[in-house]
């Protein structure tokens, strides 16, 4: 509520400054024109040229330039403040989401520990509670890792281990692992198409990308899940398209979903979990691979399709790819020397 009020106040101040600025400009031009007309009249009545005329025009132009500079400065400040407000809002949302994501598994662990401590739980249920606690611990670990990786992504300090892989085999393997992890049900994820091209990829990072795509499809699709992954190769790119039949994303949000902390807040959403970091992380991984990611959705209710393009291992891209491999080796050496 306070942020909202401050924002209205800030917009009001900006509008007031604009009105004041326009009034000053109007008054100033009015004054200049009237004095110009007065001087002209004086010139007409008295013979000879007035020496001040040219300096008056210079003064007018100079004044206008200065006023325009003030206006540009004000607008830039207003824009920056708006960005700051939006970031603040997103950060608040992020804190609320992370709090929820941290406290939920923590509360479950506490509940199971208190249950085991206070009650005589039969062995079968005891086993079940321990399994659930392990799952919660993994969830907490995953969340903490996601949060910790963000500063690294921003400072480009993430160490990737790039290797040349057959794109199709790699994706099939990673999808199988995602199926083992998320258990979406038999036939829920289908992989179509052929991609007999090779790419330079960090296997673990690409695993994070596939896991995020599968996790998002599960979270935002009404059951049963239907996720179709289509693979293909063009002359320059390996293309992966992941299409689901979920709730879709409004066209205005197609780019926003890759922004840090962004979460589409919809009251009818099939899931409420998440931190707003997953797709941001995915985009940064794809960018680090020299690739690109985009989203297509027919809008709300129309499902979503993520399209990932990665450069294939070809002469035209070899220079870039060699750079990546060199960088990986350098980072590896660095880590080795750090350990020693």
């Amino acid at each position, binding site marked *: *509520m306070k942020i909202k009020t401050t924002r209205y106040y800030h917009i009001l101040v900006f509008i007031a400054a604009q009105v004041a600025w326009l009034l000053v400009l109007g008054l100033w031009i009015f004054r200049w024109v009237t004095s110009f007309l007065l001087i002209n009249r004086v010139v007409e009545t008295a013979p000879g040229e007035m020496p001040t005329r040219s300096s008056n025009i210079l003064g007018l132009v100079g004044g206008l330039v200065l006023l325009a500079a003030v206006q540009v400065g004000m607008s830039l400040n207003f824009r920056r403040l708006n960005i700051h407000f939006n970031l603040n809002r997103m950060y608040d949302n992020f804190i*609320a989401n992370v*709090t*929820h994501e941290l*406290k*939920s*598994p*923590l*509360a*479950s662990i*506490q*509940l*199971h520990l*208190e*249950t085991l401590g*206070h*009650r005589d*739980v039969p062995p079968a*249920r005891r086993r*079940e*509670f321990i399994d*659930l*606690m392990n*799952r*919660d611990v993994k969830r907490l670990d995953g969340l903490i890792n996601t949060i910790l990786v963000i500063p690294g992504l921003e400072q480009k300090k993430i160490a990737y281990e790039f290797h040349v892989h057959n794109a199709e085999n790699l994706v099939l393997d990673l999808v199988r692992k995602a199926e083992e992890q998320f258990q979406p049900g038999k036939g829920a994820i289908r992989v179509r198409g052929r991609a007999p091209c090779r790419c330079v990829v960090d296997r673990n990072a690409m695993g994070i990308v596939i896991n995020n795509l599968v996790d998002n499809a599960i979270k935002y699709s009404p059951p049963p899940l239907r996720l179709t992954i289509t693979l293909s190769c063009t002359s320059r790119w390996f293309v992966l398209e992941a299409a689901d039949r979920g709730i879709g994303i409004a066209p205005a949000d197609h780019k926003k979903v890759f922004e840090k902390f962004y979460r589409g807040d919809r*009251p*009818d*959403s*099939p*899931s*409420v979990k998440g931190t707003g970091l997953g797709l941001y992380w995915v985009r940064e991984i794809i960018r680090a691979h020299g690739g690109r990611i985009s989203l297509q959705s027919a809008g709300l209710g129309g499902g979503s399709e993520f399209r990932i393009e990665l450069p294939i291992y070809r002469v035209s891209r070899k220079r870039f790819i060699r750079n990546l491999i060199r960088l990986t080796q350098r980072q590896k050496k660095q880590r080795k020397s750090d350990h020693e």
Partner: protein
Amino acid sequence: MSEKTAPGGRILLVEDEESMAVGLEYNLTEEGYRVTRAENGTQALELFTGHEFDLIILDIMLPFKDGFEVAREIRVTSPRMPILMLTARSDSRDRIRGLEFGADDYMTKPFHLKELLLRVRRMLQRKAWYKEVTAEQPSYHFGENSVDFETLECRSGSRIFRMTALEAMVLKYLINNAGRIVSRKELLEKVWRVSAEVETRTVDNFIVRLRRHFEPDPARPRYIRSVRGAGYQFEKENARNG
């Protein structure tokens, strides 16, 4: 773990986190309650429409329909259904919103199991007591006011409004003891079912709200009067039972 009261109480547990739901269901069942579980807001409302429940434990961040919306919709048809909100959201704005949307109690995660079970038991006891006392006297009139303790609908002059379940319980207790001075401690023990060491400002806040509802001049109360150092007293002036 704790003494088993209200055995067979039916609880609707609305929780989307499987781990939490399994743990709560086990503990509540062990306490003698019958638990039905809903995984999202829509399912909770469907189950609520088709079945009888004595209490609802409601998470806020739920798929399809959040806990606030579920509480709001339940309150339209069941103003007296006890709702305990159990959520990881600890922001005071969420707490206030939850209570405004009709929650009777609000607990944040993580919580202590014993405390949760105690609160559930007290909410069920309160419900049973209220049911008992309103059966004898379902409505009440005093001055220009009338109260329907079944629907919680009230009229004060030409103004029609609905009380919360807890406001109704406080008023009912004062009416049942009309003419007698009721201490804050007694109200806390009998209505809130908590130990009297708890902050007594809670009682005063409820009295202020009741006076705003029913007193022609809340600054100079005619019906719910304060007795300095002792508590509150309900005046029987022109009262008649329904």
